């Protein structure tokens, strides 16, 4: 039997698009179902930080090592959507100075190349930075365009014959007699028609909505949508990413992107990620934090204000950790339900390796022996997501 295994991926965010690409390269027939458009969930609203791992090199070194490796890789395979000008971690008070030693040794352990810079050097590089800076480190941070990163993976998948069905909302699953998921029921939101897509395996890659989707199969996945606010200002006040040299906190990072500077973020839980109202006190907090790092921002008008819902995994979950940074649930193991896998968590910078590890698991289940090839090839031009006919 020479037919390719048919895989359905629900969700066209970073996870879904990267996974579609990886699986098509390994010889699967892939269909992606998305109720909205590419990256219209959490992925689209990331502030766009291409992590160097500096933010985690003290508290979570496994995550940090993974970040710097993927940072270097993405810079090779996805130049088309990345601004790579490096970043700075700046110390502004005694507590930052104390933290700096842990930071330096943590960065070294994780393989993140840093260089200590004096106050004068920093101000020369970034004249708009706060005069309260004492010293700092340069690190290989970057920023990226969220949509075009997802589109790059999606285009690469389409080039290898994956099919993306946007505006197709999953409304149910068809489960056959032996508790195996055999098909997915979908409504085409343009025409209102119902369609059924058959599959050998279905992957729930809906991030903050993973719980809602798996509910349709009668399975509980403890995903907590955990939004935070982002504020984008209408002026590119720094050319590099500016981080506060401290434990990860709210509003301690400013990211340049096109002609804007973006600050984030906060963290609180909600039930439903479909619509999260903007909390003005959080916006005010971001404005104050931004002005602390770059005083000029006090006078720069805000351009966009929005909430982005991270998918955080609830405590008592039975999912296997393929990595500390994201969770994969093989529902055969956790719920006796064959043909269904949920993948959630993670950050944008590590989407490719998340897809690699998930694809490893999926291919093992499907009996596909091909290895991952996504680290070697440059992504397709994102315009090719729309086929040139």
């Amino acid at each position, binding site marked *: 039997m020479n037919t390719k295994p048919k895989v359905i991926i629900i969700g066209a965010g970073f996870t879904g698009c990267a996974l579609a690409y990886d699986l098509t390269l390994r010889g699967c027939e892939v269909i992606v179902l998305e109720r909205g458009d590419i990256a219209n969930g959490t992925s689209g609203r990331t502030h766009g930080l291409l992590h160097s791992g500096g933010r985690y090199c003290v508290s979570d070194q496994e995550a940090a090592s993974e970040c710097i490796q993927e940072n270097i890789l993405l810079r090779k395979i996805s130049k088309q959507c990345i601004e790579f000008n490096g970043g700075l971690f700046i110390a502004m008070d005694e507590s930052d100075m104390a933290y700096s030693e842990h930071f330096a040794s943590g960065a070294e352990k994780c393989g993140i190349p840093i260089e200590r810079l004096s106050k004068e050097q920093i101000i020369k590089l970034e004249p708009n930075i706060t005069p309260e800076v004492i010293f700092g480190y340069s690190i290989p941070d970057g920023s990226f365009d969220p949509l075009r990163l997802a589109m790059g993976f999606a285009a690469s998948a389409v080039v290898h014959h994956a099919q993306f069905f946007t505006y197709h909302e999953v409304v149910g699953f068809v489960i056959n007699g032996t508790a195996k998921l055999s098909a997915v029921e979908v409504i085409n939101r343009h025409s209102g028609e119902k369609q059924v897509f058959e599959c050998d395996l279905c992957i729930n890659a809906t991030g903050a909505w993973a719980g809602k989707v798996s509910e349709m199969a009668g399975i509980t996945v403890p995903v907590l949508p955990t939004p935070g606010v982002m504020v984008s200002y209408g002026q590119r006040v720094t050319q590099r990413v500016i981080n506060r040299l401290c434990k990860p906190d709210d509003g301690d990072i400013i990211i340049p992107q096109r002609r804007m500077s973006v600050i984030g973020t906060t963290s609180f839980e909600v039930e439903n990620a479909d619509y999260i109202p903007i909390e003005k006190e959080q916006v005010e907090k971001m404005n104050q934090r931004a002005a602390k790092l770059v005083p000029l921002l006090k006078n720069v008008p805000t351009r966009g204000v*929005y909430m982005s819902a991270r998918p955080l995994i609830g405590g008592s979950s039975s999912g296997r950790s393929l990595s500390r940074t994201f969770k994969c649930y093989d529902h055969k193991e956790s719920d006796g339900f064959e043909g269904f896998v949920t993948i959630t968590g993670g950050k944008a910078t590590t989407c490719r390796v998340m897809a690699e590890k998930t694809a490893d698991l999926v291919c093992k289940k499907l009996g596909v022996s091909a290895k991952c090839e996504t680290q070697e090839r440059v992504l397709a031009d994102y315009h090719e997501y*729309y086929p040139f006919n």
Partner: protein
Amino acid sequence: MSEPKWLVDFQILRQHPGDKPHFKIYPLEVDPEENVLDAIERIWAKKDRTLTFRHACHHSTCGVCGMRVNGVEKLTCITAIKSVTKNGGIVRVEPLRNFTVLSDLVVDMGPFFRHMGETRFNSVAPVGYASLPFEPDPTNSIPLERLVDCIECGLCISACPAATTNAEYSGPAALAAIQLMLTQNFSPDLMALADHDNGAWRCHSAFECSEVCPSNVDPAWRIMNLRRRVVAHRFKSLFKFPKQEKQHA
């Protein structure tokens, strides 16, 4: 202490295959500082799940939320409600013009992205090149890069009268992309892409593209600058030099 809410009628053009396009009215309580996209998202989440619209980044970098608001092309994620109406007023929302509508506010961006892809423009460029030439380069000539201004939102095509009647016109965005590439590298293929009847010569100077561009691309300026380069190139080609050196127009 929050601002008092406004009551605004959102008239959204609804159309699905087989339907006649019609306006549906959604009265909504809004914070005047909110953006139009926030209101549309709330209408979808709380009032009408059949509404289709496009959104991703919510901060004017992805370019997908372009719509016509009270007849004018806007990027709805950065368009405050108070800038388009008043308390008790109306916000009329329609999809972009000159694109095929898939349903409601979602249009087919395929042919547009094909035109953009054909130019093979560098989406990331040195900061000095990414900005308009009459803007100062803040990088002191250190090679720093940034994503270029054009977010491929399509507002310029919606506002362009030439694009209204001509489906083959490259469009302001693609021509602006060609001009941007030519400022970095000369290429006869790029010239050929611009120098034809449906390229730089199809523009008839309405200048609406630059009026609606939310991202400082100034496509009208770029199209005219492109014409200058094309004419200069044609003129130089009249004199065939034995060694074709790299030309900087």
